[in-house]
C-alpha cells in the first residue's frame, strides 16, 4: 500500500472552510470589541482570545497542509501571543494602576463607525489580491487586513501608553493573519524572527511606560510633546 502522506487532505473540505471562516469571523469580532471596550483588563483578555485564534488558524492550516512545521509555528504563536505578551501587559497594568482608557482622541461611537469604514476599505483594497488566487483562505484575507487597519486606528487614536501597545499588537496580529492566509503558512524561521522582534518591542515599551510613570505619574503620551533637560 501507499504509505505517503498528503494524497488526501486530513481535513475534509467543508469542515476546513467552515472552521476557517469561523476563526476569521471571531478574529474580526475580537478586534472590534477591543475598539469598543474601555477597561484595559478586558482589552488584554481579548488579545489573549485573538492569540488563541491565531494559533488555531496556524494549526488548521498545518492540518490542511499536513505540515508539522506549522504546528510548531502554532505552538510558538500560542505561547507568545496568548501567554507571554498578555502577562507583560498585565504587569504594566498592575504597576501603572490605570484601569481604563479615559479619553480617547475619538469617542467610542465615532471610532466604531470608523471601524465599519475601515472594514469596508479592507474589503475594497483586497479585492485584486483575492482575485489573483481565489481560495477559501485568500477570501478571508480582507478580515486580516481589517484587523490590521483597526490596530492602526487604535494606535493613532488612543492616549495611554498601554492602549497604544495594544494597538501595535492588534496590528501585528493582523499582519500575522495576513501572512498565514496569503501564503498558507509561513516558514518557522520567519515566524521566529518576527516573534522575537515583537517581544523585544513590547519589552522596550514596557520599560518606557515604567519610566514615564516614574517621571510624570501617568502614561498619557501627550506629556511627551515637549523636550526637557
Amino acid at each position: 500500500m501507499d504509505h505517503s502522506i498528503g494524497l488526501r487532505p486530513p481535513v475534509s473540505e467543508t469542515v476546513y472552510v467552515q472552521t476557517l471562516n469561523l476563526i476569521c469571523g471571531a478574529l474580526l469580532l475580537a478586534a472590534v470589541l477591543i475598539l469598543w471596550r474601555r477597561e484595559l483588563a478586558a482589552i488584554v483578555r481579548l488579545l489573549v482570545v485573538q492569540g488563541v485564534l491565531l494559533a488555531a488558524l496556524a494549526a488548521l492550516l498545518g492540518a490542511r497542509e499536513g505540515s508539522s512545521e506549522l504546528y510548531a509555528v502554532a505552538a510558538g504563536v500560542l505561547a507568545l501571543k496568548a501567554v507571554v505578551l498578555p502577562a507583560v501587559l498585565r504587569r504594566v497594568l498592575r504597576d501603572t494602576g490605570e484601569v481604563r482608557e479615559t479619553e480617547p482622541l475619538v469617542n467610542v461611537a465615532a471610532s466604531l463607525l470608523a471601524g465599519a469604514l475601515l472594514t469596508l476599505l479592507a474589503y475594497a483594497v483586497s479585492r485584486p489580491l483575492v482575485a489573483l488566487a481565489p481560495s477559501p483562505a485568500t477570501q478571508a484575507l480582507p478580515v486580516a487586513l481589517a484587523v490590521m487597519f483597526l490596530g492602526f486606528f487604535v494606535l493613532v487614536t488612543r492616549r495611554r501608553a498601554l492602549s497604544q501597545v495594544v494597538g501595535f499588537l492588534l496590528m501585528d496580529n493582523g499582519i500575522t493573519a495576513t501572512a498565514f492566509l496569503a501564503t498558507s503558512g509561513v516558514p518557522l524561521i520567519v515566524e521566529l524572527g518576527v516573534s522575537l522582534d515583537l517581544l523585544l518591542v513590547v519589552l522596550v515599551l514596557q520599560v518606557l511606560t515604567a519610566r514615564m510613570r516614574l517621571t510624570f505619574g501617568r502614561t498619557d503620551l501627550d506629556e511627551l510633546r515637549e523636550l526637557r533637560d
Partner: protein
Amino acid sequence: MTGSAVTVGALAAVTAQLVLVVGGAPLLAGLMRQVRARLEGRVGAGVGQPWRDLRKQLGKEAIRPDGSSWVFTAAPRVLLASTLLIAAVAPFLSTVSPLDGVADLFAVVALLLLGTVALAVAGLDTGTAFGGMGASREITVAALAEPTILLAGFALSARVGSSNLAALVEGMLTAPGQVLSPASLLAAVAFAVVVVAETGRLPVDNPATHLELTMIHEAMVLEYAGRDLALVELASALRLTVLLGLGANLFLPWGVATTASPLPLLGAAMLFAVKVVAFGAALAAFEVFMAKWRLFRVPELLAGSFLFGLLAVSASFFLA
C-alpha cells in the same frame, strides 16, 4: 393532501401560533421577572402575575387625561394590532403560511416602528413633561436600532436571495452549517443588542423603574390607566416574545415545521416555546449582572451593534 386541506392546515397553524404567542407572552414576562427575583434573592410574584395584572386592569375604567385627543386613545390599539400582525405572519411554527406574502423582513420592521411611533405620539399628546421626554428618548433609541435590525436581516437574506422571513428560515434549515458561519454569528450579536434596545431591557432601559431621570418606555405610558394600560402592557410583552421568537427562529431554526400537518406543528410549538423561554431566562439572568447605562452611552452600544450588522453583511458577501 389537496390544496384546500393544505390551506386549512396552514390557517390552523397561524391560529395556533397566535394563541400560543398571545397566551404565552405575559407568562414569558412573568417568568423573566421570576428568574430575576430568584437570582436577586427575592421570592417573586410568580409566573402568572402578569396575567393576573392584565385581568385586573381590563376590569377597570380607562381614565384619560384632560385635553388629550383621539391619538392617546388610538395608540395602544395601533401598538397591539401591529404587534399581533407580526405575531400572525412571522414563521414561528411553520414556514407554510397563507400570509406568506406579508411575512417580509421590511414589513415586519415597518410594523415594529409603527407601534413605537404610535406610542411616542401618544406620549407627546398628553402634553406632560414626562410624556415628551419619554417620547424623545424612545424615538432616539428606535432611530438607532431599526437600521441595525435591517442590516442583520440583510446579512441573512443576502445568502438566500430573498427578504421573505419564511424563505430565510427555510434557507437556514436546508444548510445547517450556516448557523455557525461568521455572518450569522455577527448578525445574531447585532440582533441581540437590538432586541435589548427595542424592548427596553437593561442596560438601555430598566423595565422595573419609575424614576423620572432614567425611564424611557415607562415615561411614555405613565398616563395610561385601566383597559388602555392593559393593552399597552400586553403589547410590550408581545413585542418581547415576538422579537425573541424571531431571533430564535432566524438564527436557530431547528424544529420549525415545513409542512402544515399536525404532528410537526405540535413539535414545532413545543420547541419554539422551549427556545423562547430559554432566551428569555438567559436575558433575565444577564440583566441581573448589568446596571443601566447613562442615556448618552446608549448610542455607543447601538453604534457597536450597527457595526456588527455591517460586518455581518460584508462577511456574508465576501467570506462565504
